């Protein structure tokens, strides 16, 4: 078990008229080596929860056990820095954190903060940039000259270069074009399968959850409503409807066809299986 969150609560602006309880008694266990999606409406506490994972926010109540460290309401983790190195947190619109003169310097900034030699940091930066699919000719450019999608990649490379064990991404594809989104999600999938990284993604996109994630955590009103495997969650649309979520296209198509009286029964929710089933129905029906 990599992460175990118990009775976690968090309140913003405590003791002022703007007091707001963002998390209320959250209990959650996340396993190693998986891609876990956190979904939920705006204001359901997703971002607040995620910021607890590297102790940017400390719990008001409850405790977090993460990568063999404990964070509780009473005690700050002793080696905060090493925790931040192990949990790579990528914020929403991370391109706004770029500040160095060149792309490579910016990416190397993270590892250098963890007392890694200049040389090693540069080496890691190159690897990370390669991993996110950026070409060598932009390494010496100013990050401010790049396009939006490229900046996003640089920012993510900046976190990857720290070589975290767990990668936490808050809406990493928000504002990217469809092509960029697919590439980005594929990158996370590769990091998970080839580089053995556990990944947590906060997202609004059910297609991404469906295609890339192993588990799904549904949040509402500051608590975890459900934690379930993706396959189970999208088995049919009943759970989605219960949680007031629009299911992915493939499930909606399947449901619509069933409603019209076609006999579609597939074991795996893939395009191939669905099209096969449709062909079978049309031929024999």
């Amino acid at each position: 078990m990599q992460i175990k969150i118990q009775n976690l609560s968090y309140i913003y602006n405590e003791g002022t008229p703007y007091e707001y309880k963002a998390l209320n008694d959250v209990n959650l266990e996340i396993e190693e080596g998986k891609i876990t999606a956190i979904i939920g409406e705006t204001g359901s506490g997703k971002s607040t929860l995620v910021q607890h994972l590297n102790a940017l926010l400390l719990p008001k109540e409850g405790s977090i056990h993460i990568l063999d460290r404990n964070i509780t309401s009473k005690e700050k983790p002793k080696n905060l820095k090493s925790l931040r190195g192990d949990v790579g947190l990528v914020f929403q619109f991370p391109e706004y954190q770029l500040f160095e003169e060149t792309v490579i310097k910016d990416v190397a900034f993270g590892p250098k903060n963890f007392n890694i030699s200049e040389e090693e940091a540069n080496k890691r930066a190159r690897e990370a940039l390669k991993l996110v699919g950026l070409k060598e000719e932009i390494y010496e450019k100013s990050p401010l000259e790049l396009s939006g999608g490229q900046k996003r990649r640089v920012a993510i490379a900046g976190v990857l270069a720290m070589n975290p064990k767990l990668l936490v991404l808050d809406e990493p594809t928000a504002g990217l074009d469809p092509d960029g989104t697919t590439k980005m999600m594929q990158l996370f999938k590769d990091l998970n399968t080839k580089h053995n990284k556990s990944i947590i993604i906060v997202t609004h996109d059910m297609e991404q959850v469906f295609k890339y994630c192993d588990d799904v955590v549904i949040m509402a009103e500051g608590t975890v409503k459900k934690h379930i495997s993706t396959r189970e969650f999208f088995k049919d649309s009943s759970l989605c409807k219960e949680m007031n979520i629009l299911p992915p296209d493939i499930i909606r198509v399947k449901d619509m066809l069933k409603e019209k009286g076609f006999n579609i029964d597939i074991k795996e929710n893939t395009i191939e299986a669905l099209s096969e089933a449709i062909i079978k129905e049309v031929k024999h029906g």
Partner: protein
Amino acid sequence: MGNITLGKYIPMDSPIHKMDPRAKILAMLLILISIFFPVGWIGYSIIFALVSFVIILAKLKFSFIWRSMKPMLFMLFFLLIINSLAIKTGKPLFNIGDFVIYSDAIFNTLYIAVRLLLMIMITTCLTATTKPLEMTLGIEDLLKPFAKIGVPAHEIAMLISIALRFIPDLIEETQRIMKAQESRGVDLKEGKIKEKLMAILSLIVPLFVSAFQRAEDLANAMEARGYVPGEKRTRYKVLKMAFRDYLLLGASFITLVGMIVLSKII
């Protein structure tokens, strides 16, 4: 950021809150000027009573004003030390070692403290009861007569209201970037000087970039909606002077005249 009280707007339902900002700004100026006349303890007592009356009318708490005064105490303490060193008139009160402190030093400092307290009370009466937007509208109108000698009244007001509008945004942005950089191992509290400089740099550069970006976006959005600086514009909110506004102005004016007369008598 939450504990700064000086200049904060306090939403309340009071007759003072409903007054015309122009009347309030002018009244504040008149009373502020009257403080600068040497009217002695009698004069200041009268002003204190009048301003206290307004504060009670505005439903403000005196503890709120006290909190605004707190940062000034440090300054007053220094003033007391300097006065004790410099002023050697009046009766000798007591001595610390060989050093004698005279009564005038204490009185002088108290005198300034009272003036400062009054000033804070008066300005708080204005800022705590006037929404920032109303304030800028008031400033714009009051600056209008000076447009003839080249004061860009509307532009100044627009500048102030845009600046006010962006303060909370920039605070939020700063916190966001701080968190992002902390996640990359930046330690804003500890570390060597060189590391600290780097940490500050990693904060300031993105903040500037985003501030410029926001400014450009806003300029484009304003132009797209037909904003031309210097052009005549109508207003959504039209200011109107009511009886109570004239009453406030009249009372402030009488106070000022009264204080001038008082200062001549004393």
